[in-house]
């Protein structure tokens, strides 16, 4: 809502020097979000005067038609001589009153005016358009000849030549732009903002809705409301004999402009003006085009209407419509129909007689909030009217708004108000809320006292009765006040949120982070400690990425949760794997010149349920049952947290210390081990094959849970085809595993430390090249028995002397007993036993034996 300060002053006697910023501060204090205060004409400097066009010489030798004019500006130029001005616009004629800016003036935007030569003539100033004066579209007549927002302002003829146009056009003003929250529909009007202003300043309000209204009678335009729940009030008034040539006066146009609306025609401008003033949307029908009784009913499914915006709309049975005897003539509370639109004044080409609407029926009605909201949404049609109705309009303002419209039509368009006053009103009782008088005190934690509470509620417009318990009748313009806490808020905000004390509650002792939460933090720290940088990518993916990742047709990761309204049609699904997002981040970094990269992400992946259901919209008047809640959760996709890393380039840099080392599959596998170590879960790494990974360089990551093995992820070098398809650097490596599957269920038991000396034994075993090291190691451990303290593979060797298809694995074994110093024989025996079992299990032969 845009509120011109000059207009606001009409209802509240603000202190004379009060600036827009001052008012902003006060209104923010009572809860109106005044986003900006626009300073209109702040840098404007005259002379800017009314002039009359005396002569026009058409200059035709230029690319576009140019006019050389002489304009009478009275004594404003100091000489009284006609002012010579070159003008490129054409929507004015000799004799027209226009706005002239003279040399020495400064227009908005710091545009200084001086006499200058242009199009071969000297131009002493300018004839101004609305744009040049920072006013917007003037809605001038003769728009067909170059009007619109760029067109010259043609003033009504009654304004004297030489008059100061800055004052005449009210060019200097301040406009408060207020973002009205959905509960404050009444502040989408000058009346509502004025009320808040008056309360904030403690000044009286001149309520523009308090005007004399004639009693309803039986001779008004006939209206039948078939759906009183959808329309609980309908006021209709008729004005006849309007002068179709009458134009909106400057003050009316200027107020509309400052409030952000475009002047259109007098009748429409008046209905818009009254809506801005009182918050009541109005509609004016050309009476000659309405057939018989006006009705309000629900539409028939499939019924059609063409609305004022020219759109043909197919109606839904839930839409509320205004009808005449032939059918819908308006989408109630949203937009009128084109057929009964007020006609612009147009001269008849034959006779020259100006024709246009002369008789109008004014509708001021009140419609159901939700019905209007749904219709506006259904037809994707948000209008000034629907915006107000869906936020709540004062139902008791219809007759005042209708009267105000009638008054202005009579005053400005020379019409005659018919005596008939139609009012259809569905009976309703005033709404009351009962609260303990100290309820606001308890909500705020402040002792306001009963008197303050009652006074503040009265300022809001409530009627308040009672002592310890207050019975509060809320004003008709505040449909948002329904609950005790709504009343508490009114009291607290008017007393000032800034005056609330600051106290700290004492929560009961908490249990700190859960194990899962700690684990997530540890994993992040450990990966960062290992040199990985965290990226947080979007979860939106396109399904073609699964082909690029070489997933099998029946891969479960291909089953995705999709969005109805994705940002991009290319990425309509939610990720089932972190790799696409993380690899995109890798590619982005690479393309920006960072080539040695190690990235990680932990984040949610989404998998549809085997059987998808819809989530029921439960009621909110009680706690849902356990079954209902379970039903909601079962309608949600499976969601869990994965962790992934991607690497490329050097893992260790080359430098003065020596060579570097490229990132490879082993780093990816080690990242999985880092994660597992932090979770406290034993992770088994074995050879595997899975879509995105190089089939010979892919580790399958396995955990054991309740005696069963579960594959939780993969690590290694990516498949060359994946690297090509995704445009990644060669040899890019990756790891991804299901983090939530790594939950330690046992507390780590401390090892016993023996202080006896260690006995070290090395053994080199020759095995077939395809024997996995993990199998050899397992056999060695088992064979070495309990004297083995630790075991480490320190060399892998292949070479001619071993023979084709063989490799040598060299292990260092450390033996130690808890209770004695081991002899060399004991240690050797244990080593031999280990080698023997490795031989038995894996065919290993001790090298050199």
């Amino acid at each position: 809502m845009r509120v011109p300060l000059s207009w606001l002053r009409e209802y509240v006697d603000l202190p004379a020097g009060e600036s827009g910023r001052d008012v902003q501060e006060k209104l923010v204090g009572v809860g109106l979000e005044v986003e900006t205060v626009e300073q209109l004409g702040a840098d404007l400097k005259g002379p800017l005067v009314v002039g009359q066009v005396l002569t026009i010489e058409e200059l035709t030798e230029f690319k576009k038609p140019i006019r050389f004019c002489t304009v009478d500006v009275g004594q404003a130029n100091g000489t009284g001589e006609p002012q010579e001005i070159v003008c490129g616009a054409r929507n004015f004629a000799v004799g027209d009153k226009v706005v002239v800016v003279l040399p020495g003036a400064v227009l908005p935007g710091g545009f200084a005016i001086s006499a200058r030569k242009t199009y071969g003539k000297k131009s002493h100033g300018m004839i101004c358009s609305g744009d040049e004066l920072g006013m917007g579209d003037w809605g001038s007549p003769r728009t067909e000849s170059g009007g619109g927002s760029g067109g010259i302002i043609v003033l009504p003829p009654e304004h004297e030549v030489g008059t100061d146009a800055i004052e005449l056009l009210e060019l200097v003003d301040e406009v408060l732009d207020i973002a009205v929250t959905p509960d404050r529909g009444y502040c989408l009007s000058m009346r509502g903002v004025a009320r808040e202003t008056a309360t904030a300043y403690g000044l009286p309000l001149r309520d523009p809705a308090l005007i004399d209204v004639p009693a309803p009678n039986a001779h008004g335009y006939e209206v039948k409301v078939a759906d009183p729940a959808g329309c609980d009030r309908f006021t209709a008034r008729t004005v006849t004999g309007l002068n179709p040539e009458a134009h909106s006066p400057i003050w009316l146009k200027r107020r509309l402009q400052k409030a952000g609306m475009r002047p259109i025609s007098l009748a429409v401008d008046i209905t818009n003006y009254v809506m801005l003033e009182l918050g009541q949307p109005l509609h004016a029908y050309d009476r000659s085009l309405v057939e018989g009784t006006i009705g309000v009913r629900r539409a028939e499914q499939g019924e059609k209407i063409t609305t004022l915006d020219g759109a043909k709309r197919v109606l839904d049975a839930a839409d509320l419509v205004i009808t005449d005897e032939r059918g819908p003539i308006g989408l109630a509370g949203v937009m009128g129909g084109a057929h009964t639109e007020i006609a612009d004044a147009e001269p008849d080409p034959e006779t020259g007689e100006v024709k246009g609407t002369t008789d109008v029926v004014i509708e001021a009605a009140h419609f159901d909030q939700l019905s209007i909201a749904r219709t506006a949404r259904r037809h994707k049609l948000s209008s000034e009217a629907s915006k107000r109705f869906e936020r709540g309009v004062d139902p008791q303002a219809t007759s005042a708004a209708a009267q105000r419209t009638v008054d202005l039509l009579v005053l400005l368009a020379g019409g005659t108000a018919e005596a008939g006053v139609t009012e259809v009103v569905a009976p309703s009782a005033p709404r009351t809320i009962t609260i303990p008088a100290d309820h606001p005190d308890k909500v705020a934690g402040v002792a306001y006292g009963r008197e303050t509470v009652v006074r503040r509620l009265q300022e809001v417009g409530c009627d308040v009765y009672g002592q310890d318990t207050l019975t509060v009748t809320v004003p008709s313009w505040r449909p948002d006040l329904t609950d005790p806490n709504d009343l508490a808020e009114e009291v607290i905000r008017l007393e000032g949120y800034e005056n609330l004390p600051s106290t700290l509650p004492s929560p009961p002792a908490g249990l700190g982070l859960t194990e899962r939460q700690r684990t997530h933090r540890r994993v992040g720290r450990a990966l960062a400690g290992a040199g990985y940088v965290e990226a947080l990518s979007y979860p939106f993916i396109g399904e073609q990425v699964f082909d690029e990742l070489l997933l099998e047709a029946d891969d479960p990761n291909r089953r995705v949760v999709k969005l109805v309204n994705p940002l991009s049609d290319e990425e309509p699904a939610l990720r089932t794997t972190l790799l696409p997002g993380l690899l995109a981040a890798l590619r982005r970094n690479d393309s920006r010149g960072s080539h040695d990269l190690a990235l990680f992400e932990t984040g949610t992946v989404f998998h549809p349920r085997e059987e998808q259901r819809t989530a029921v919209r439960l009621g909110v008047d009680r706690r849902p049952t356990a079954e209902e809640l379970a039903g909601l959760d079962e309608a949600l996709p499976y969601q869990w947290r994965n962790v992934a890393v991607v690497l490329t380039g050097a893992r260790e840099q080359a430098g003065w210390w020596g060579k570097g080392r490229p990132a490879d599959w082993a780093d990816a596998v080690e990242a999985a081990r880092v994660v597992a170590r932090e979770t406290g879960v034993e992770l088994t790494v074995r050879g595997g094959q899975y879509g995105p990974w190089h089939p010979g360089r892919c580790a399958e990551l396995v955990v054991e849970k309740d005696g069963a093995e579960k594959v939780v992820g993969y690590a290694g070098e990516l498949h060359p085809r994946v690297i090509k398809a995704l445009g990644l650097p060669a040899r890019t490596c990756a790891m991804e595993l299901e983090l939530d599957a790594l939950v330690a269920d046992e507390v780590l038991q401390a090892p016993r430390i023996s202080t006896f000396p260690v006995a070290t034994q090395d053994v080199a075993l020759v095995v077939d090249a395809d024997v996995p090291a993990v199998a050899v190691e397992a056999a060695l451990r088992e064979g070495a028995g309990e004297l083995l303290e630790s075991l480490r593979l320190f060399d892998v060797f292949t070479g001619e002397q071993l023979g084709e298809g063989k490799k040598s694995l060299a292990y260092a074994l450390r033996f130690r007993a808890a209770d004695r110093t081991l002899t060399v024989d004991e240690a050797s025996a244990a080593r031999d036993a280990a080698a023997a079992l490795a031989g038995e299990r894996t065919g290993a032969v001790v090298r050199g034996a």
Partner: protein
Amino acid sequence: MSAPNKSYDPVEVEALKPEEIERIRDEALAAFAAADSLEALQAAKVAHAGGTSPLSLANREIGALPPQAKAAAGKLVGQARAAVGRGLAARQTELEAERDARVLVEEAVDVTLPYDRTPAGARHPLTTIMERVADVFVSMGYEVAEGPEAEAEWFNFDALNFVPDHPARQMQDTFFVQGPEGTKGDESGVVLRTHTSPVQARALLDREPPVYIVCPGRVYRTDELDATHTPVFHQIELLAVDEGLTMADLKGTLDHMVKALFGPDMKTRLRPNYFPFTEPSAEMDMVCYVCRGESVGNPDRPCRTCGSEGWIELGGCGMVNPRVLTACGVDPEKYSGFAFGFGIERMLMFRHNVEDMRDMVEGDVRFTRPFGMEI
């Protein structure tokens, strides 16, 4: 060596004459002093303090002296030997110190050489700032609660008093999840949560009051990515439900939070606002972290962070709407509560002077790395 001879006149033993002992001693000391290396000193030691050195030989002669002469001669030789020993040790120490000094100089390196062998990793500042905020509340006794990102509409809207078709529901541009085959549009009843507030409802359904929880998490709205918007962002939500909680408690909790995160002289301001799930509702501002309010009315020192307003908008808050309590089975007659929520991106932007939202989204290591492990 002479045989013991009791009648032997000690004065007659040439080697034990005091002048001779002194000479031998001085010769030894001079040799040590002349030794210019540990090797030379070792040779001098053998020559002048070794088993066949003149002094050792003289020492042996003492045994041949008559008893009455032994004491004096022993003293004489003993003193000389002690002096030689001291001289040797002193020179040894000197030469070792010289050697050490030389070696240490030789071994010196340029310690300014860079060492970027394994570049450091880092956690994303959004992650770490969320943890930091959560930790402020965990230290007060709050617990960290979580909820799903694909969430039932009932939790995201209805339970929070967002009436169907109410304009408030359209304030948040929602991603809808497709329903089962045969359903259309938004009929699945499942959305990507538009705020962390559904966790409020989940917490109230999961726990018995008193409930004090904080919930950091990812949320979604259908905004295109630009310098100030992102469709995927992070919020942190706080909920306290207990007997007798007031707006003053809310204010105190907010004040404490900004002090903990931004320094002891920080404070907050509440402005009335509207949210369906709180009543009364407020917008919370904090003193501008950058200019500390000094840019207000001071055109010479404009502040880009707060637009010279002196305050930064943090997020929304209020007293939990009793309707929310009812929908979650908590008796609003007995319990009251407060809640607030704010955007983490925004906090990161003004706390660390981030100018472009995209920097937090794109995963560029040059942006993230300086933030390190914690924030």
